[in-house]
Each structure stands twice: as C-alpha cells, then as structure tokens.
C-alpha cells in the first residue's frame, strides 16, 4: 500500500506515555486508597499527592506542546462520526487531567488538610475552609475519576482497535517505537 500516516513528534509521544502511566497509576492508587484501612494507606496517600501535582504540571506542559506541535491528521479512511468521537474523547481526557487534580487540591484546601507534597514541602490552599464544599468536592473527585477511567478504557480500546484490526497507522503514530517506513 502506498498510504502513510504521520507520527506525533517525539516530545508529544514521550509526554503521552509518561502521563498514561502516571494517570493510570493515580486511578489505581485513588480507588485503592479510598477503600483501604490497611497499613498501605499511608504510603498510597504519600504517593497520590505528589503524583497528582506532577500530573497537573505535566498536563499544562502537554497542552502547550499540543498547541506548538499539533497532532498529525487522522487517516482519510476514518469516518466523520469516529473523528468526532476521537476529538471529543481527547478533549474530555485533557479536561479531566486538569479537573481531577484541581478538585483534589481544592477539596484538601476546603477540609482543611495541610497539603503535604513531601517532607515540609506543602501546597497553599486554593479554597477557604468549608465543610459542605469539601464534601461536594470529595464526591466530585471520585465521580470525575470514574469518568476519567471510563474514557481511558474507551481510549485504550480504540487504540488497540487501530493497532490490531484496522492497522491504519493511528496506533503507531503515537507509539514510542515500532515499524516505520
């Protein structure tokens, strides 16, 4: 075949896979923390907070990178409805990667808990103390995380579909390594 798909720039691909690992780890840490009363709880919380901050910083960098290095166009073979779905899921993923950590930061502020990142390094509160607001944000933190996990599953499913069945180069365009022309 004589049809080619452009790859994402290297910096975009590295940011993607780094954040994929981090976000997935955060989702599992979060759901594990919220259920746990075991001695692991303390460790899970101690990882969850700095990792969440790192996700927030990286997603901002990633958004800037996306504006500087726009993604390659999807192959012509993809129907318009799927293009819309792809676009919408990507917008949702970006939005949630901002919202979930910000809600986490906000809820800890409203509780109030000291927002310890490591040792004596703490984040300042971004909201005033308000228990009702805390309760609302705590619930939203969970709900948005579930939505993020659901969109992640859809994203993974679509990526595998492109890579294993359609084989249209969309998966490879984001892969860190693999077949190239």
């Amino acid at each position: 075949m004589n049809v080619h798909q452009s790859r994402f720039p290297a910096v975009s691909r590295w940011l993607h896979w780094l954040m994929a690992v981090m976000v997935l780890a955060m989702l599992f840490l979060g759901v594990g923390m919220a259920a746990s009363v075991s001695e692991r709880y303390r460790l899970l919380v101690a990882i969850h907070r700095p990792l969440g901050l790192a996700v927030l910083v990286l997603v901002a960098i990633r958004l800037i990178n996306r504006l500087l290095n726009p993604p390659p166009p999807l192959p012509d073979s993809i129907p318009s409805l799927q293009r819309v779905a792809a676009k919408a899921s990507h917008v949702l993923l970006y939005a949630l990667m901002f919202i979930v950590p910000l809600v986490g930061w906000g809820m800890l502020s409203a509780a109030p808990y000291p927002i310890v990142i490591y040792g004596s390094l703490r984040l300042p509160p971004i909201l005033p103390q308000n228990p009702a607001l805390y309760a609302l944000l705590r619930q939203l933190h969970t709900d948005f995380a579930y939505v993020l996990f659901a969109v992640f599953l859809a994203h993974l499913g679509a990526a595998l579909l492109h890579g294993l069945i359609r084989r249209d180069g969309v998966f490879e365009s984001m892969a860190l390594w693999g077949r190239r022309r």
Partner: protein
Amino acid sequence: MSEASDLIDQRAPRTGVRALVWFAVIGAVLLAVLGAFAYVGGWLSPHRLTQARMMAAFESAGGIHPGFRRNHAKGLCVTGWFESNGNAATLSKAAVFAPGRVPVIGRFALAGAMPFQADAPATVRSMALRFLPPGGAEWRTGMNNIPVFAVNSAQGFYEQLLASKPDPATGKPNPAAMQEFLARHPETVRALPLIRARTISSSFADSAYNSLDAFRFVNAAGISVPVRWATVPVQEVLPESGAQRASADKNYLFDELIARIQRQPQQWRLVLTIGQPGDPTADATLPWPEDRRHVDAGLVSIDHVSGEDASDGSCTDVNYDPLVLPSGIEPSDDPLLSARSAAYARSFTLRAGEKHEKAPSPVTAREVQAGAIR
C-alpha cells in the same frame, strides 16, 4: 531529521475470523483492566475490611447519627495554647517544639459512636489537639485516658466493634460474641486488665491522655527516635466519686469541664516518652517499660470552651487525623496509624456531607454559658 518525513506504512486491515479473534483479545484486555480496578477498589472482595465496612461497624455498634463523628461522637470544643519550653527541640526539628507559644484548637470527647450517651466514669475520655505554629507545619493528635489500646490492628478494632454490637433482645452486647472475639485476640486479653486497672479520675480536667500509638521524632541532624506522648494534668488528680455519677445530669463530666475552664485555664504537661531499641512501636496494646526517659516538652493551657454547634465551635470541622504531622514527627510502623487516618477521613467526609441533617450536639451552647455562673 524532519518530523514530517517520519511516516508509517499502513497495512491491510484484518477482516473476518481474524478480526473477530483480535476483537476478543481487545475485549479481554479491557476486561482485565476493569477487573484489576474493581479488585483494588475492594468490589471483588466482600470480606476485605474497607473504610465503608468500618463505618458500617460503627453504625451497628452505636446507631446512625448523621452529621456526627463516627467515633468519639459526644464532644466539646476548646481553644488555648501550647507553651514549648524547648526541651524537645533536640529530639524533633518540628517548629512546634522551638521555645515559644503556639495556638491550639482542641476537643474533649467520650469514646463511642453514640452522641447522646450519658457521661459515665468508665467511658474512655479523649483529648484531641491541633497545634498551629506559624508557617503551616501543623500537628494533630488524638489521645485517650487509657494506658494502652485494646487492639493492635484495624481488623481487631473492627471485630471488637462487631462483638460489642448491642443484642436487640437485651440492649447489651452478646457475651458469647465478646468471648469469641477475645479467643481470637490474645493481645486484647493482655491489654484489657491494664486498661481496667487505670485510675479513673473525677474529671476531663484531671485525666491524663496518651497517644497510644508510637511515632518517630526526627531532629535537625536526622536522628530518629521512637516516641509516645501524653498530656499529664497539672490540676490535682481526684478519684472519681459516686456522688458525681449519681447526679441526674447526663453531661456531668462535660459541664464540670466547662465550669473549670471558665474559672481558670486548665493545664497539661506534654510529656514525651522516648523508646529504646526493641520497644514495641507497631503494637499499641503493649506498654513500654516504666523506666524509659521522659521529656517534658511544655505546657498545654486550655482557656476557652464552646459547644460544637456554636459559631465559634472551632474544633467541629477538624479531622484529628493522627497522620497530620509536621516535618520532625513521623509515623512509626504502627498499622493503627494508617487505619485511624483512613477511618477518620471517611468519617469526616460523611459528616461534612450530612451537616444539614445533623441533630444539635448534646453539650449545648446554653450549658457552656451556664458554666460561667457556677
């Protein structure tokens, strides 16, 4: 190398049976990820002890009381200060131990999930403190007037709650259930005589309160020592008397505390017990030997009191999470610290969301005002 030339060949799509097989593989991958998520979240393990099950156990033992703490539900807010004498500054780099005065927001309470229980001498009393040094390195601690804790694990605590659940027929815990619990928990069998042998004093104000869990103090040189702490009353300790108990006042302990604080500040020495290598740090049911070094770190003074529902009920929305620690105090390997932190967080989240349906706290602002004229 130009990125634009970084092209990938497209290949022919898989079709027919092959496509179906790969569909199945993709489905299996997604299911596996979903399953792992559900497993970590506890949905696939009905017997795993989770935060939700711990909360349910409190409700089974003490009833459902929206808006109240799930344990130590009956309480009173206080404020005051901690005057550090600097003695602990060589043990911990925490700002709170530098010589000087730090504001404190505290809470006195009775153990149990029942906010309307009548005060009784044997009910475990607690003192919770939140130290607020400038710079934000705050320290929160919850202490009890018992020498050791009755259990040494979250599982033990949970089983104890279930065993103490009142039998609907008698209104009292089922003795058989308690026997069965004790048979499985020799650490509790060892700890209970120590707890029962404590001197029960006349007041919240003349009680000593113990951290029970061990922590680690870390100084500026990075040297870490195991520590348990206690607040020891400066007030004369009087034994509990039957006359008090016979009073019709269901809140007699709280009312007496209110009156005392309004007469003059009540004070406690913050005493650190420094553990030796080999002293148990991971088991709150085990006492440390009597001859361990004690360090008097300073004086806690409580000079103001308010009902939990009062606008100045400064402790009401504080989760006295034992893992809110400044740099210089670290958790030990005691598993109860994680268990308490996790359970308190869930309790706090629940009651914060239930504020609008909360019944008035039993120790009211009226009693706080009445205390002034005694």
